[in-house]
């Protein structure tokens, strides 16, 4: 079943700015779906329309087969949203924020409290339940929004850059939590600027640019499109200029560092063999950028 189906979605703001120019998008139930795009590409507008914070100019949106024009409240019950910016009252207590949200979805007080406890414990906020939101750290505030987005047990969870400004350790913790939710069968749509995050978490990825989806496919298929890959090699000794050969280009970055770009047809083995023949010993090797990032740049700059 499709968790989300978007057809020919347009949004023109009052200022005349066209944020969406005919978005078509399908997300299957159970997918961990990444929606990527540069700033102003239309990610947040798309999410805003799905969650009713932004009104569409035209087009159709269905959530688990429910058309938002026909029965938006029924569709909303199935969606949980974690926005990009903090949008809770900073004066309210953590537990109140989460249980109130459950109440807005019609959950009884007992169920609301039970679910709030479940997610606040999982996200390490239970000890802070009586703390006013303004006293939480940035990472805690992000986790609070995730707990709030999940409290009514939505089938579709939409996260708009949930790890922006979060330190590495916390980000990894959030990734584990989201992967656990995904394994439990929940459909997740994630927008992120961290392409490493999308590569780690998502099994399907769409790229939006200038209000249109320019790519929508499985992550592996997407990465297969990458025809060139760039690595940085740290050498044991200083190297001179290395001649490029068919399908492999070398660029000297400093005395002991080489940048090598290979086409898809060339194997990594052939790079090593070639360098060995030049008596160059490689100590370490890393991708210059994340593979998805490389492809992303290629697609959005087309």
């Amino acid at each position, binding site marked *: 079943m499709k968790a989300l189906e978007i057809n020919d979605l347009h949004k023109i703001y009052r200022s005349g700015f066209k944020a969406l120019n005919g978005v078509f998008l399908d997300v299957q139930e159970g997918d961990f779906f990444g929606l990527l795009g540069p700033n102003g590409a239309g990610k947040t507008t798309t999410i*805003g329309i799905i969650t009713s914070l*932004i009104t569409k100019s035209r087009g159709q949106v269905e959530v688990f087969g429910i058309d938002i024009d026909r029965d938006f409240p029924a569709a*909303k019950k199935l969606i949980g949203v974690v926005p990009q910016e903090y*949008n809770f*009252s*900073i004066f*309210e207590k953590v537990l109140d924020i989460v249980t109130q949200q459950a109440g807005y979805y019609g959950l009884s007080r007992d169920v609301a409290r039970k679910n709030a406890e479940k997610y606040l414990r999982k996200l390490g906020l239970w000890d802070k339940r009586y703390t006013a939101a303004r006293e939480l750290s940035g990472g805690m505030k992000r986790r609070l929004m995730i707990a709030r987005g999940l409290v009514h047990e939505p089938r579709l969870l939409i996260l708009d850059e949930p790890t922006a400004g979060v330190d590495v350790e916390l980000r990894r913790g959030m990734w584990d939590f989201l992967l656990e939710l995904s394994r439990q069968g929940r459909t997740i749509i994630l927008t992120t600027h961290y392409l490493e995050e999308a590569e780690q978490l998502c099994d399907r990825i769409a790229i939006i640019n200038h209000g249109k989806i320019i790519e929508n496919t499985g992550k592996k298929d997407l990465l297969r499109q990458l025809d060139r890959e760039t690595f940085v090699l740290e050498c044991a000794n200083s190297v001179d200029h290395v001649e490029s050969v068919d399908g492999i280009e070398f660029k000297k970055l400093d005395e002991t560092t080489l940048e090598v770009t290979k086409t898809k047809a060339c194997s990594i083995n052939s790079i090593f063999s070639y360098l060995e023949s030049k008596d160059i010993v490689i100590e370490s090797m890393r991708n210059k950028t994340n593979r998805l990032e490389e492809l992303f740049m290629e697609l959005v700059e087309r």
Partner: protein
Amino acid sequence: MKQHLISLYSIIRKELIRIFRIWIQTLVPPVITLTLYFIIFGSFIGSQLKNIGDYSYMSFIAPGLIMMSVITNSYANTVSSFFSAKFQRNIEELLVSPTPNWVIVLGYVCGGMARGISVGFLVSLVSLIFVRLPIHNLPVAVLFVFLTSFVFSLAGMINGIFAKKFDDISIVPTFVITPLTYLGGVFYSISLLPHFWQTVSRANPIVYMINGFRYGFLGTSDINVWVGLTMLIFFSVALFSANLILLKKGVGTRS
């Protein structure tokens, strides 16, 4: 329906928590201000004035002062609470949920009424220190206070919907509500005015609210109580509908 009632309860609970969390800003100042009114206008100045009808000046102004506190606090609560929810963007918590617009309006309005009537009750207790108010018709007094609080809570919500900055939430109370309240017969009977100003005063809806409430206590009114009641019902329906239309159109809430 049960789901809507839970949503409504959640909004009202949130509003009550807010009112009592900042009670030093919401409940205490109006009581202090109105106590000063009783002392200065009722006791110091009022003792030098002759009766209005069969009642002492203090008895005459007490219902008006109570109603004035209900009006200003009902309005102030919804406008500040709704605007603050917009400003902090936590209104989005409600907008993304399946809560229907009528529940959102009713929830905020109940919050406004809770504050308006709580302050009105506290001011009534203070008034007992200065004057013993007779009760002529309790149901009329209760009906007028509830409907007036309902109407001004709805009006405050409309202001909150349109407000874009903090200045916008004080313009209407300062330049519209306060003058209309002062000219609405709190401190005088409009029958004391020249004929022309009596006619002008009858265009002020607050005159009807204050007089209707005063009738409930003293049994005396400058206007027909039924006209006042009809007017309040009309304003209730009109302002509730206006709120629903504004929320449906997404004015001030959705892009």
